């Protein structure tokens, strides 16, 4: 059964004008910000880097090495893979791998690699191994 809804025969009330003004402001803000990111954004490919913190946590004979991976490029990177390799003085090797779903431009993500030996007693290499474009 289709029924006509009541017609709005009057002008918008003051309250409705306030609602409309706020709504217009919100939608306009979103559009302006999208345009801003469009015009100021660069379309350069992702530039990924990773740094490790100097403070290493030791808990129950495991060594936690914090790292921060960041994307200073213009585009988002998908499936960012960070690898770590610890070569000890006795020749033993420990490795770690971490994958992040997405890394937007100017975004940073933190994590930790966990080793069974003290990284300070060997050579630790942490690098971004790969990514793909979404």
């Amino acid at each position, binding site marked *: 059964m*289709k*029924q*006509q*809804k*009541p*017609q*709005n*025969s*009057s002008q*918008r*009330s003051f*309250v*409705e004008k306030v*609602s*409309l003004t*706020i*709504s*217009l402001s*919100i*939608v306009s803000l*979103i*559009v302006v*910000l*999208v*345009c*801003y*990111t*469009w015009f100021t*954004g660069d379309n350069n490919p992702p530039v990924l880097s990773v740094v490790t913190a100097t403070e290493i946590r030791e808990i129950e004979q495991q060594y936690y090495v914090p790292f921060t991976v960041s994307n200073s490029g213009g*585009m*988002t990177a*998908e499936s960012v893979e960070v690898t770590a390799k610890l070569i000890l003085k006795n020749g033993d090797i420990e490795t770690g791998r971490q994958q992040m*779903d*997405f890394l*937007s*431009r*100017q*975004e*940073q993500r933190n994590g930790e690699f966990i080793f069974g030996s003290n990284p300070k007693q060997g050579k630790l290499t942490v690098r971004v191994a790969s990514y793909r474009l*979404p």
Partner: protein
Amino acid sequence: MRKQNNNSQPNIRGDGWRGEIEEIISGASGGFLFGIPLLYTMEVWFIGSYVQPPVLLCILGVTFVIILLLNRIEGFRPQESETLFGAIAETFETIAIGMTCAMLMLVILQRIDVQTPLTEILGKIVFEGVPFSLGVAFSRSLLSGDAEVSFKNRNQTESRYSGKHKIIWQDTLADFVATLIGALFIAFSIAPTDEVVVLAASASPLWLLIIIAASMLISYGIVFAASFTNYSERRQQQGLFQSPQSETALSYLISLVAGLLMLWFFQKVSLNDPWFIWLRYGIVLSLPASIGGAAGRLAV
């Protein structure tokens, strides 16, 4: 279905702040119902993370046109706009409500925070805001339904019973079942997904409390603050769900327990897991479950 001339809804233009707020809450409640399932979809967050600004503008434009067309026959306001300008104005309001609700939920679920880049924030808000905005436009159809008719029928049925206790338990049972069915309807498809685990993993105790508060607030908004049910009619109802506060609290507990059972059913939690895992996952799932439960009670 065109907007109906519903005499139980007193919101005519010029009613003032109360009527306006009721209409906005009605619209927002529809948005939550329609948008929550996609809010718990990881793929939508990911799309929002990488989509380019021109695409976002196109999506906003297409959404605007679709909602403008919807507003010619539907819309969250009970009054029909005479002019195209009126429909355009309602479309702006619809999108603003949808985007604002989506942004609030993304903040509550910690999908956006102060460290999130602007492009990602906008992408997520726009992508999650589209289903919320459609839900706002559909809110009257989604939630007004035949609630009033059902209430009247039940009140007539109730008059046949003389025992007060029987009515109380009948009402309580009806609300309990309605909450359970609504919670199952919305949360059953969310419970087996990894999103619950991901969201629970990133939620601190404070954020879990915020999620609980949001669940109860939205649930309250859908049933009582929104104008598509008659508040006084629900107040006349008997049973343990009698007052809005107790109804909201009880329904939340039912949704929480229903959510936990669903998680257990889908093997997301086991009896070997510690209690706080159950609690965390349960609270995260209780948000969509309580919204579904609130919608279910509207149908009673």
